[in-house]
């Protein structure tokens, strides 16, 4: 564990009196390794370690009988602080329908998450509508239709020849017309560096004024999380992040990177392939997971 690694490193210095700054830096190298191994972006790690060091230079650590334990406590507290508020999920806006737009890279889990979000609102007695705006991926519309069928949630699908923007505006109008409480838009996966496709998202946002633009991110995302989050946030001013596939053993350091560069809240966690596997976000649990 990180605590035992840190204790081992810092113990060899304790013998000769107070810990020095140099000793502490040796211990912080272990923290750096742990965070990098957890996929936290190296720039984010640098600035995070600086903050930890600033706090760790105090007497609580330097004169402690178990400095390793003290450092881990500070790391954990700082991680929790960066994680932000815990979140139980998504709320309806006062003006109905609430429009929620899901965006993100290819394969991150948007379509599945759209189904999960629809189920969550339905469980709450709300009338949900799914909008199948991915007209690119083979059988993407069918995939959302199958999910909607299983939930008994209607799915607004494209007329042939319509583009993604038209599907979204049509879907929201349909939702308004038939009194839906929430309209959930599933968009096609795309690269943050694909200007044309990013423009498409900006256009959709412009036309339907969503209450939520949620970035769906795979928990196993590596160093690239910074690029992805920055581009999507700068283009769309996202309102939050949904992290998926946390039922695996990925440490999820991407979350720290995303929080660091966007400051946007983590709203929900995908914990499996079934539509009931959507959970609230607990910052302290995420911090423990990243620390390993």
């Amino acid at each position: 564990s990180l605590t035992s690694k840190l204790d081992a490193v810092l113990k060899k210095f304790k013998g000769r009196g107070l810990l020095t700054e140099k000793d502490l830096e040796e211990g912080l190298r272990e923290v750096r390794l742990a965070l990098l191994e957890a996929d936290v972006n190296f720039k984010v790690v640098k600035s995070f370690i600086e903050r930890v060091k600033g706090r760790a230079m105090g007497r609580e650590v330097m004169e402690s009988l178990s400095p390793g334990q003290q450092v881990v406590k500070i790391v954990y507290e700082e991680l929790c602080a960066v994680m932000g508020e815990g979140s139980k999920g998504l709320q309806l806006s006062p003006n109905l329908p609430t429009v929620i737009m899901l965006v993100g890279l290819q394969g991150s889990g948007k379509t599945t998450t759209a189904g999960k979000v629809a189920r969550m609102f339905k469980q709450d007695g709300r009338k949900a509508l799914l909008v199948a705006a991915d007209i690119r991926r083979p059988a993407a519309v069918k995939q959302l239709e199958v999910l909607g069928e299983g939930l008994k949630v209607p799915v607004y699908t494209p007329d042939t020849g319509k583009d993604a923007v038209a599907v979204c505006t049509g879907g929201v109008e349909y939702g308004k017309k038939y009194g839906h409480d929430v309209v959930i838009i599933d968009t096609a996966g795309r690269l943050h560096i694909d200007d044309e496709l990013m423009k498409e998202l900006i256009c959709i946002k412009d036309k339907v004024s969503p209450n939520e633009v949620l970035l769906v991110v795979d928990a196993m995302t590596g160093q690239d999380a910074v690029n992805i989050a920055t581009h999507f946030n700068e283009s769309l001013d996202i309102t939050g992040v949904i992290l998926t596939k946390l039922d695996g053993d990925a440490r999820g350091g991407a979350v720290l990177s995303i929080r660091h560069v966007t400051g946007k809240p983590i709203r929900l966690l995908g914990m499996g392939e079934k539509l009931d596997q959507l959970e609230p976000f607990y910052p302290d649990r995420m911090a423990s997971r990243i620390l390993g």
Partner: protein
Amino acid sequence: LSRWKKVDPALLDELEEVLISADTGVLVAEKLIDKIRKDKMNDPAAVKEAIKEGMINILTEHEGALNLPDAGPAVVVIVGVNGTGKTTTIGKLSERLRREGKKVVIAAADTFRAAAIEQLVIWGERSGATVIRHTGGADPAAVVFDALAAAKARGADILIVDTAGRLHTKVNLMEELKKIRRVLEREHPGSPHEILLVLDATAGQNSLVQARFFSRDIGITGIVLTKLDGTAKGGIIFSIMEELKIPVKMIGVGESIEDLRDFHAKEFVEALFE
């Protein structure tokens, strides 16, 4: 890097960061940089070239193209965690084989995920391959059994098996893969000839864990690294190569049918530094 006039610790630190930001992980980055430190080089340009050479050496240690023998049919099984690009890669591979004059049969053995079969059927149509399928919820091993029989009956050159995405931590799902492998071994001795693990270049250190588990549980003969058209560099393959000796055989560079390329170590290393 061109602003460095001499080799000093700051330059080496910067190079280490380039590697880490490419998802090589700290161990690989330090190993490559330490070798430079030991060799006491003093020309910055030479340093970069030496690192590239060290990286190419790791990758070429265990190289290999796709092994598709004349085995009536040769069998390729595609596996990996959820969303990495397995089904799309099969569409691309099937089209490449068609252009090589090969007859391809595809087994739609993802009987779990919504519209997985429909997605694969479209790729089959696009690449002129026959897709063998059952209804949703069927036993994947049964689909594989039937697809193998159909491939033999039709004189197909290649059978490609699409499997459902699965996290390596789910024991029952890994058992399902083992069963598929056993069916192939029993019904067509010598097969499967390739078990390809599809990894997403955007993933970080977990790709190494995935490779370890899949390798241990069903054996992996090669890797396909997808989504290299993004900004992620896929540097995790150095660790995978060193620890598991599994060659990267192909890379995915986009969502279109022709976006599949053979893996070339030198090109990969050059792209990492771009």
